[in-house]
């Protein structure tokens, strides 16, 4: 067993491992002021600063074209940055070609060498490092074992399913024990079930090895589920970086609030540390927010939906309930999403248990909970 977690902690991997986390043997990665200018002057990356701790899994999340893949490719050395520095373990690797950076990479499209067997694919990186044949075969076999494909070494790429191909690609990327693992939307070509399975497996292996990992994805669920920290990107910049729950519950910008999860955009007014949204007054995450006209973003699950009580219709009840009318509703398995219209015409989406089945035009009451995930000044 050459490829096993204990080996990762061998002295070969110099790192500032803290005593609290003995498993961590990964390298630190830092991007400093990375700018990537395209021909024509447009910026694919517009000043990326990112510090990744050893053993951490950071997800770069964003819509297509936001620069997340470019950032990964700059880190990998497959593309050069116009300005900025890439540091791995504190040393500047900006000038190094991809093959000298000691990274492992898994690509979005199937990237197994079609003319080689799975085993030979995994061996390739070791071959490049002139590892003797016996050791090579042993380590490649172990790596395939690790991704659950022990018996598939003799198969060619076209004899493997998409998920299996990505597993082999993962084994191929890890077998050289690289300093950093880069995953470029490795799951996007797979079907939903396999995607979740492989996502969890990537996370398990990543934690087992403590390998520093950057995971590019446009799928927020993937990012939130697998990452230690999520960096939400937009137009070549990082909009917010933080733990998944922080990103979700305390969005730094309207973009993050709307891109990660779904949000209701509501107009309101901040005064005295609270925000007034129509008939309701909600607390603020940041009570020091200056007064003024704002747009607030409220999660569908932060709104309770209830059948209209026996009270006179139209009059808001004392408990801060807001009357609304059901527009449409859709069943989503364990829960339901219902679109409602407030009396002032504002349309909101509400998430509620599936056993409550509102019908169109039914009068309901809404109850707001918690604070809006983001509040931004309206110009």
């Amino acid at each position, binding site marked *: 067993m050459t490829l096993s977690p204990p080996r990762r902690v061998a002295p070969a991997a110099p790192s500032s491992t803290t005593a609290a986390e003995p498993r961590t043997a990964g390298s630190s990665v830092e991007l400093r002021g990375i700018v990537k200018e395209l021909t024509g002057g447009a910026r694919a990356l517009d000043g990326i600063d990112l510090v990744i701790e050893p053993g951490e899994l950071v997800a770069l999340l964003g819509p297509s074209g936001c620069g997340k893949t470019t950032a990964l490719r700059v880190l990998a050395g497959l593309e050069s940055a116009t300005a900025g520095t890439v540091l791995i373990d504190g040393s500047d690797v900006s000038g190094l070609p991809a*093959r000298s950076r000691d990274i492992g990479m898994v690509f979005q499209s199937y990237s197994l060498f079609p003319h080689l067997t799975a085993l030979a694919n995994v061996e390739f990186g070791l071959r490049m490092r002139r590892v003797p044949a016996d050791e090579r075969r042993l380590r490649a076999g172990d790596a395939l074992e690790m991704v659950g494909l022990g018996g598939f070494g003799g198969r*060619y790429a*076209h004899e493997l399913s998409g998920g299996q191909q990505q597993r082999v690609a993962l084994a*191929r*990327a890890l077998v050289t024990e690289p300093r950093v693992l880069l995953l470029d939307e490795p799951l996007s070509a797979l079907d939903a079930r396999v995607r979740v399975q492989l996502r969890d497996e990537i996370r398990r292996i990543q934690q087992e090895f403590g390998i520093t990992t950057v995971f590019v994805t446009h799928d927020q669920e993937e990012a939130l589920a697998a990452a230690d920290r999520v960096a939400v990107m937009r137009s070549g910049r990082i909009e917010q970086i933080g733990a998944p729950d922080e990103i979700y519950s305390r969005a730094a910008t309207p973009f993050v609030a709307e891109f990660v999860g779904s949000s209701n955009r509501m107009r309101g007014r901040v005064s005295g540390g609270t925000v007034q949204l129509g008939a309701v007054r909600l607390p603020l995450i940041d009570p020091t927010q200056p007064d003024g006209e704002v747009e607030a973003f409220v999660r569908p699950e932060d709104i309770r939906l209830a059948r209209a009580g026996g009270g006179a219709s139209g009059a808001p009840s004392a408990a801060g309930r807001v009357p609304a009318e059901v527009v449409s509703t859709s069943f989503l398995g364990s829960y339901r999403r219902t679109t409602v219209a407030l009396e002032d015409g504002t349309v909101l989406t509400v998430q509620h248990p599936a056993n409550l089945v509102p019908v169109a035009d039914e009068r309901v009451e809404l109850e707001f909970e918690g604070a809006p995930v983001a509040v931004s000044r309206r110009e």
Partner: protein
Amino acid sequence: MSAREVSARGVGPRTVRARDRSGVHPGPSTATRWVIVAVIGLLFLVPIASMLEFTLRGGLGGGYTLDRWAAVFGGGLTGEYKPIVTGLTNSLVLALVTVLVMLVLLVPTMVLVRISFPKLQRVLEFVCLLPITIPAIVLVVGLAPVYSVVARMFGSGVWTLAFAYGVIVLPYAYRSIQANLQAVDVVTLSEAARSLGAGWPTILFRIVVPNIRRGLLAAAFIAVAVVLGEYTIAALLNRVNLQTALVVVSKADPYIAVIIALLALVFAFVLLVAIGRIGGGPGSRRRRTAPPAAPAVPTTPLAPAADADEPAQEAAVR
């Protein structure tokens, strides 16, 4: 020349698409199809059958005889037929050198353009397909002064013709390699290899070449077929190859010339069948999604001697 034009049309992705489409849309009716096949078959078969009939004629006395075929296979190719042996040898050497020139220059260029300079793709395609549009006679006018320099550098050996032939086979070679190159995600594969520590030579020889092997083989076969059928350039630059030798011999003994032409056709046929096998045959175990990397299949690159007669006379006039 006509052979080159015909083959150019049969080349490239269009053939692939047409074939795919036939599976989806109902084509012409079975009867129509058979009529088309019969007409085209006759067009090809009549001249070939006539050539065969011609070689079997018993001379003025009438009747048929196998004597000439026996002479050709029975070591009769000495003496006055010597030029054919020389021509054939020269053509084979030329074919070999042409394939080498083509592979060494074209493959790395195409791979590099595909991976690192995708913007040059159009330019490269244009340049590579250009020779098809330029008649050989025109090429030679330009090549003549070039070859005075070539002769000074490399001597006047017949093999130097391979430089010119390398240009002529470019369109065919380009098309077959390109078809294969497009079926493989070379960019991702090369990036994967780079991330695993491979340098450019490794990527070219260990990753790209094995995956476009079929395209390379097809390109090589087509190059061989084109070179064996080339007449104009060799004739106008005063070199002896198979075709010029055939013309010379046909002046003395038209029967033998036609026999050799027939044999050359058979050889070309075998080559083309081989290409077909490599291209779309049961050996396509490699990838499910990729379209069959149908190599360019020129129809009759080996111009029969009769076809080559005209430029010979022009040369003689000159």
